[in-house]
């Protein structure tokens, strides 16, 4: 009965609209991501050594080519020849690449779990990073806080795995304990890979500042300059090899757990009292961690990842115009770090006595927590006993 309202068919405009829409879906599919240049470090070096003169673009290009030759791309990782024992290429391949659409764990673990904070490059500036406190770790310095090895030594595989499995309480680093073992293995290797790549990149960039006018880091390979090329490559390898060797030897630099008193468990209170004296006295923990241990002593410092460019490029963090170029290069806004609140029940690097011993004995790399060479082993254990006791101690004032 309402059929008298006839109008033209709308099939053609509709179907053409659909075609246009589906075409839109394929617009700008873009290329696969690339590793980002360490622009902050480049800027730091330029400010430190060259009064702000930029490093020539072709040199940067050469560094990039070398890195690609050594380490490949985020989708196709390589590893320098002769160091295959350090990381397993098969594992790297599982962690690298984009997330497969069927969610099989064949590839893409890093981008699935890590890259939104740590970034594809491992530079700690993924999309989520800026709003986290503390910032996600920038792997490229090769510094790791919670490890069993000595200061300035890379962590062992076990150390990285432990952080992945337990997470770091009190930070945004979650626990990945629910992932299967082999996936964690792959991620451990990939973290090492990113870290080593970052360190090599830094070393090469630093080397650039030593070059004479007109000199190249690695001249283009031609028949004529075969010798020059090989010499230059040797020089480059001299920079790269020590970094890799350090990682290979990490295992041997584990801080030994010396001098654990036999009666440590039985006489906890005794050691704890001794530790308390050290806390306020010889070890001077109180200076940073404060009298109540909540970490309100020294709060004006930055960590190494920030000091790296603040100090070397002599930037005043309170002057926006000085900081701004670095922010644009990819640094995060400088943020002061607080000494640990020792009353939080759990410690970021593990709460067992062995963990605490290593934190006190070897310090925490990258932070302002120093190693304690002047303390004897038994003194360190006494401090450990006090640290275990501290969270349950009632607050005291004006000691």
């Amino acid at each position, binding site marked *: *009965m309402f059929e008298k309202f006839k109008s033209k068919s709308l099939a053609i405009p509709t179907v053409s609209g659909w075609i246009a829409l589906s075409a839109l879906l394929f617009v700008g599919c873009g290329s696969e991501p690339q590793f980002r240049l360490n622009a902050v470090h480049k800027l730091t070096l330029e400010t430190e050594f060259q009064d702000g003169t930029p490093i020539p673009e072709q040199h940067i290009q050469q560094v990039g080519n070398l890195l690609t030759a050594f380490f490949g791309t985020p989708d196709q990782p390589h590893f320098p020849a002769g160091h295959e024992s350090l990381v397993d290429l098969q594992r790297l391949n599982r962690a690298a690449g984009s997330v497969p659409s069927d969610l099989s764990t064949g590839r893409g673990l890093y981008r699935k*779990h890590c890259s939104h904070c740590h970034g594809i490059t491992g530079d700690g500036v993924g999309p*989520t990073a800026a709003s986290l406190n503390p910032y996600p770790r920038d792997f490229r310095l090769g510094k790791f806080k919670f490890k069993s090895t000595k200061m300035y030594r890379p962590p062992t595989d076990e150390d990285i795995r432990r952080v992945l499995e*337990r*997470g770091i*309480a*009190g930070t*945004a680093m*979650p*626990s990945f*304990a*629910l992932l299967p073992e082999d996936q964690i293995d792959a991620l451990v290797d990939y973290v090492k890979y990113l870290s080593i790549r970052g360190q090599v990149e830094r070393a090469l960039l630093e080397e650039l500042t030593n070059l004479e006018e007109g000199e190249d880091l690695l001249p283009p390979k031609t028949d004529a300059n075969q010798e020059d090329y090989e010499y230059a490559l040797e020089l480059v390898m001299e920079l790269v090899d020590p970094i890799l060797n350090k990682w290979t030897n990490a295992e041997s630099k584990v801080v030994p757990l010396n001098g654990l008193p036999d009666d*440590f*468990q039985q006489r*906890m209170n005794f050691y704890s009292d001794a530790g308390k004296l050290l806390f306020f006295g010889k070890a001077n923990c109180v200076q940073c961690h404060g009298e109540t241990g909540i970490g309100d002593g020294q709060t004006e410092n930055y960590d190494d990842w920030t000091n790296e460019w603040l100090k070397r490029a002599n930037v005043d963090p309170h002057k926006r115009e000085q900081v701004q170029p670095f922010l644009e290069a990819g640094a995060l806004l400088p943020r002061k770090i607080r000494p640990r609140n020792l009353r939080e*029940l*759990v410690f970021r690097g593990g*709460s*067992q*006595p062995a963990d605490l011993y290593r934190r006190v004995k070897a310090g925490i790399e990258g932070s302002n927590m120093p190693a304690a060479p002047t303390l004897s082993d038994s003194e360190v254990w006494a401090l450990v*006993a006090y640290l*275990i*006791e501290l969270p*349950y101690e009632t607050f005291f004032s004006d000691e």
Partner: protein
Amino acid sequence: MDRFWSLLFLAVPVLGLLIVLGAVFNVGLHDAWLPESIGPRTKGIDYLFNLFHIIVAVVFVGTGLLLAFSLFRFRATNRKVASYVHKSIWLELLWTIIPAGTLVFLAMHQLPYWQANKEDHRAFEPAGAGSSDLETPTVRVVAYQFGWRFIYPGLDGTFDTRDDVISENLLVLPSHQEIVAELRSMDVIHSFAINKLRLKQDIVPGLSPRIWFMITQNGDWEINCMELCGWGHFRMSARLRTVSPNDFEDWLMDIVQKRGY
């Protein structure tokens, strides 16, 4: 065309019912009904879930068929004139009283289950009441962005002492024992949920709600956060491991030993 439209609306109850039946009886759709159950707590909830769905399905199919039938029967091509009917007090009464009775029955019928899961326990603590006369919970759950901390009272049976045992993101519990857990949050609202126990309890910071449950199987299960807690909400899961009571003691002792006591 009118017939086609009637059939289209007929498809709603028919297909809907078929899909749900397929899910329930595992035909065509595998593992599409309720997840497995690992404790007695689920019994009542699953029973209610099934009961409600049976009643709802009857209404769904009944009204759906009625709708499709009247569309088919009273399509304009089939009729010259519509009937001029305004109301029927008896029909109104009928379809007020029957649903009302059903709803009242459902409401009353499910009350005891809610009570059993939420109130009938000595650990029940109304918000704000003093907690001095409550039993000590088996475990205290502390939720934070984005992880779980499980604190056991340790050997002395009281919390906030030096021998508390702390486990991050791994909750080990004895099976076949009633567990009382006290939930706390360090930062925002989280929700402690074990899917296979049909258990869910929001943890509002400042409140410390208690839950109790029993798991009758040994194995590994998952704890999820089910209340939006920030960007990392999706990864806030922890492992729940149930072991025999003896193994639980051993595990606890092992940690106590490692802590150096």
